[in-house]
């Protein structure tokens, strides 16, 4: 049976194959980003009444996770930073290649943590101007980096949102891949990665290939794929499809993958997987009442008065001590169960770390989904209020502030469902890894990772059942 290929679907498929499909999504998101920046800088200081904070922290984050779970990395497809960068590159094409020694995810992992820290420390959700500046900083960084370095250097090696999307997209049900491998075996041009060139002037690229260095015949999974569809446009044989696939199965693959290598040899990618998973818990925990108790306790214990210090300590515990303890213990046990046939403890840790991503996605989805579902309609009164600010009269009616979304109580079962689904995904991936690496004792080898997954899921459910306690107001005085 032929696998489901969305690009062959009548309307959606045709649209996705349209040359300007990506640009059209980017233009929409660029307009929204402009609204976010303008209202953030010039609109009201009250976060729930400002489009910058509402659209960014309620709708964008929530819809991003929904898209990743339901389809794939379509928010990278529509990234407006790349649209502006592309316009800039028409004026000043980049000439340098991203330095070889920086071709890892380490800086990106650091930036991902830095953005999360800034979010908590500066209470970005409560600050419309700061949210606007954050968006501008993304535009500026993507523009500056990619005007110097070729390819998608910013996306692949730096962008914190990109890394979030890459990690989460491993559970997406869609993947860009080759339709008929035999066709690729006879292909001489390799346009999917090199780009299509003018026959008369081979130096001129008429359609770029994959900017992230993913060669389709050996591409496995969604890691580093921005769903830009450049490969689809470039392939002269129309041999690339957007295929349905079992979510997260790619995490158990041992093969070398194009543009990435072998997952078991990528400590930086494993670190991204671990930080992604544990940051999901930290980010959700930080908005609850017990988090403030913990932070106050940390301040007291360390004898300090600085909020930055206690928050940094919380980050070190959540993103350093906890993962090292959980993963280290589980890896040591699995190594012992496998009688060291699986390699050293660090090799086992590296191999199984990726299995935690699905439960991490479940927690992110439960958290961001909560804000989206409970606040989906809040954008309407905010737009009405903005119209009053702009035109000094209720052009769109008086703000319907009572319009919000689902009751938090009604969302909780959905949150638990998402976490359980993620936990089941993690268990399945861990078992598949065990089946591949320790075929004689797969169940027993999986047990430590099952315990870690259950503990993480339990912490997540407990966290999301806590009363919310949002600190930080974007108001002077």
């Amino acid at each position, binding site marked *: 049976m032929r696998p489901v290929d969305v690009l062959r679907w009548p309307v959606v498929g045709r649209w996705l194959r349209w040359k300007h499909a990506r640009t059209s999504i980017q233009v929409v998101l660029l307009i929204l980003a402009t609204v976010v920046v303008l209202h953030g800088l010039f609109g009201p200081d*009250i976060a729930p009444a400002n489009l910058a904070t509402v659209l960014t922290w309620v709708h964008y984050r929530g819809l991003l996770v929904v898209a990743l779970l339901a389809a794939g990395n379509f928010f990278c497809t529509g990234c407006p930073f790349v649209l502006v960068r592309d316009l800039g590159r028409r004026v000043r094409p980049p000439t340098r290649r991203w330095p070889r020694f920086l071709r890892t995810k380490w800086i990106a992992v650091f930036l991902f943590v830095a953005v999360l820290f800034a979010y908590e420390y500066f209470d970005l959700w409560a600050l419309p101007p700061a949210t606007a500046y954050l968006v501008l900083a993304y535009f500026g960084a993507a523009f500056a980096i990619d005007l110097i370095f070729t390819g998608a250097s910013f996306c692949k090696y730096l962008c914190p949102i990109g890394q979030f999307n890459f990690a989460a997209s491993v559970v997406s049900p869609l993947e860009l891949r080759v339709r008929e491998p035999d066709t690729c075996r006879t292909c001489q041009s390799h346009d999917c990665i090199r780009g299509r060139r003018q026959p008369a002037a081979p130096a001129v690229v008429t359609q770029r290939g994959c900017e992230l260095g993913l060669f389709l015949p050996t591409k496995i999974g969604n890691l580093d794929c921005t769903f830009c569809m450049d490969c689809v446009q470039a392939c002269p044989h129309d041999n690339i499809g957007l295929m349905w696939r079992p979510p997260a199965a790619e995490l158990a693959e041992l093969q070398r993958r194009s543009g990435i290598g072998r997952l078991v040899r990528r400590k930086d990618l494993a670190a991204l997987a671990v930080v992604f998973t544990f940051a999901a818990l930290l980010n959700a925990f930080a908005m609850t009442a017990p988090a*403030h108790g913990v932070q106050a306790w940390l301040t007291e214990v360390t004898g300090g008065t600085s909020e930055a210090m206690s928050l940094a300590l919380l980050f070190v515990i959540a993103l350093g001590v906890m993962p090292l303890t959980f993963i280290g213990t589980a890896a040591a046990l699995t190594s012992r169960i496998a009688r060291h046939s699986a390699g050293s403890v660090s090799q086992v840790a590296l191999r199984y770390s990726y299995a935690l991503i699905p439960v991490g996605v479940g927690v992110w989805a439960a958290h961001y989904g909560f804000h989206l579902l409970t606040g989906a309609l809040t954008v309407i009164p905010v737009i009405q209020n903005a119209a009053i600010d702009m035109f000094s009269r209720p052009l769109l009616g008086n703000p319907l502030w009572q319009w919000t979304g689902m009751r938090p109580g009604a969302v909780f079962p959905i949150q638990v469902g998402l976490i359980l689904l993620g936990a089941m995904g993690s268990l399945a991936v861990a078992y598949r890894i065990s089946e591949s690496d320790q075929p004689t004792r797969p169940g027993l080898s999986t047990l430590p990772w099952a315990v870690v997954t259950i503990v993480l899921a339990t912490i997540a459910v407990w966290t999301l059942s806590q*009363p919310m*306690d949002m600190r930080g107001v974007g*108001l002077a005085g």
Partner: protein
Amino acid sequence: MEFQGLRLDTSALKLLIVLAFCAVCGCGRGERIAADPIEPHVTLTPRELAAGVATVATLRLQDSSRRPLSGAELQVQAFMSHPGMAPLIVTAVEKGDGVYEARLQLTMAGDWILRVTGQLPDGRMIDSSFKAQVSSLKPNVE
């Protein structure tokens, strides 16, 4: 102008830039509804706020010579600091001598923004915001 094979009309681009400029000016601070410098003096009772506990906001309006301002129509909007939550909107009741009262039930612990809006009988507008911290652990008010 051509971009990724897509022809862009330069006049359309110019129009977009003009519209963006108008939007900036239109929603800029200078264009917002003019607020009279009358600042209500607000007292919250109890002084230490806790989630779910009834709170009374007492608003005192005076002119520059400290004479009470009566007959105002005031509304208190209580916003949670995180976007995506419904604000609490309460109409203040006049108690006499320029004193108004609004009863609130702040349902969630955390930081709240209380915005007082309204109009005096002579048409002057009031728009003032302040923050309040609601706690379930260690209550206090700013």
